[in-house]
């Protein structure tokens, strides 16, 4: 089974601090990590390879330092890493990103399965996975919590939804996005880390991929960010005292004077 896992390098958000004046992330000294949801995607890819044989290729789009994320995935058992990196891709929204990644996947060649994390911890859109499947015109199954069965032509998976579970059978090739309930990502092995350090990362830019220049980077991104802000902190409530009828009267008075007017 040839598996492609798409990952994203994100800032470690557990200890992120916000600059209270500018309301922006303090990025200095913030470590970059693999998007936590993508760790489950990598682990599932490696487990499927261990079950059915084949190869796991990791793909990411990002700046040159995303090389580290690919090597970490290789240390967990993936076979190779592809870094899609070009200034022309800067400013991509989820649409342009999924278009660009689908171009890289086409170049990789034949595959049976693509796995993505359900969403990234920085943007939280959950759109890139489904976007890739749309650009490639293959079925997608989102929020997968278990791969039940797989043959070389189809796969039966369990989805985790807010209202319950769904068992879906999909022909392959297909794209899955996975939730954290699917597995527990492994700690890399020392042999894996040594292999990852020596691994050759494939780097592709715009000229290497067959992409419509109109659909990449900032100009290929229909999304426009109008404003980013931190919602103002809510001030504490006011406690009313007295018997119920008195409080009721106070509430009416307050509503009249402060809210309704």
């Amino acid at each position, binding site marked *: 089974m040839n598996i492609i896992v798409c990952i994203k390098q994100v800032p470690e958000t557990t200890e992120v601090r916000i600059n209270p004046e500018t309301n922006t992330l303090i990025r200095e000294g913030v470590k970059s990590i693999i998007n936590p949801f993508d760790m489950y995607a990598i682990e599932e890819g490696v487990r499927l390879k261990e079950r059915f044989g084949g190869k796991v290729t990791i793909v990411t789009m990002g700046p040159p330092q995303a090389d580290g994320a690919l090597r970490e995935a290789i240390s967990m058992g993936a076979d190779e890493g592809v870094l899609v990196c070009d200034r022309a891709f800067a400013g991509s929204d989820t649409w342009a990103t999924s278009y660009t990644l689908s171009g890289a996947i086409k170049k990789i060649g034949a595959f049976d399965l693509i796995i993505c994390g359900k969403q990234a911890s920085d943007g939280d859109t959950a759109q890139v996975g489904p976007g890739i499947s749309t650009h490639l015109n293959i079925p997608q199954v989102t929020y997968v919590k278990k791969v039940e069965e797989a043959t070389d032509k189809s796969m039966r998976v369990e989805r985790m939804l807010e209202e319950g579970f769904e068992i879906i059978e999909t022909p392959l090739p297909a794209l899955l996005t996975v939730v954290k309930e699917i597995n527990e990502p*492994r*700690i890399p092995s*020392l*042999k894996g880390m*040594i292999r990852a350090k020596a691994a050759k990362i494939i780097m592709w830019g715009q000229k290497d991929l067959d992409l419509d220049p109109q659909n990449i980077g900032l100009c290929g991104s229909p999304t426009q960010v109008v404003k980013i802000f931190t919602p103002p902190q809510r001030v504490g409530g006011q406690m009313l005292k007295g018997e119920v009828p008195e409080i009721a009267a106070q509430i009416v008075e307050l509503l009249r004077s402060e809210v309704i007017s």
Partner: protein
Amino acid sequence: MDYLFTDEQKMIKELAHKIAEEKVRPAAAKYDISEEYPWDVLKVIGESDLFGLFIPEEYGGMGVNITNLCLATEELSRACGGIAVCYAASALGTFPIVLFGNDEQKKKYLPDLASGKKVAAFGITEPEAGSDASAIKTTAKKEGEHYILNGLKHFITNGGDAETYTVIAMTNKDKGARGASAFIVEKGTPGFTFGKKEDKFGIRASSTRELIFTDCKIPAKNLLAKEGMGFIVTMRTFDMSRPGVAAQALGIAQGALELAVKYAKERHQFGKSISSFQGIQWMLADMATEIEAARALVYSCARAIDAGSRDVSKESAMAKMYASDVAMKVTVDALQIFGGYGYMKDYPIEKYVRDAKITQIYEGTNQIQRNIIGLQLIREMAK
């Protein structure tokens, strides 16, 4: 301080640190209370190849390197001295095979120990033979193609949970220390059973049991080296393993210091963080300095062994003695910084005091280490 570790050594440190924080620390209190053997954590350590750090590559390991072993042991011990000793004691039980095993013995036992599928234990101590190892009473009598073992070993770390045991027994009592030999004994051999599991003060995640040999028949080919080599096997093994105990002590001390610094910053008294008081700062400064001195000694010694220096008994003893004395002092001071809270089991620091204490006792008490150092000094003077 930058110890100029190689890229691979930095990788080992990083990997062991990750395992320590993600798997060992969250399990430390649980196993300290339950005294169960931490198989789930050891499985992760095994899958990460760290058991391979004391086993040659041709037998499935990552190559024998004491510095690497110390790096892994220090990091694991930062989070739990008990879980870390299950790991380090497997190295102790494996060294006799690595150092003195023939190819057939190595092929048979080392791959499973390298993968962590099995753990090893070393059996020398007996009720009447602690510091005086020459007083051991366990016998091994040759009968045709077998040896028959009889006797009792006690305080054996990993005893009962290990699959592979290296055991010292007398093959010729008349020869005294020169009449001891080393054997490999597999768990499950008829006549080989386990006694009671000890209820310990510290390192409670690790198991400590008696090994009981009652007409235990083992193949003669399980003899390591030659008859009469038992004490040489033991001494060479301890020379290799003592830096590991030192690294364990170092890790416990480092872990306690980190907790103390964190607590000192969080704890407020007299309207200030207690870390702003010079009295606390000086304690922390002394702790950190002594730890750094111990670390320098441990890694110098480990590097000397890795570089092929054969005469390391003195340095090995110094590292073990100094690092464990530092661990004891530092953990007690760390508890002091925690004040009354530190004395309560709700806080993790009291466990560090309990875990530290054993490092002054096992693999040769610190008094025995001083004997080794003293004797070596006199020998050197006589040269």
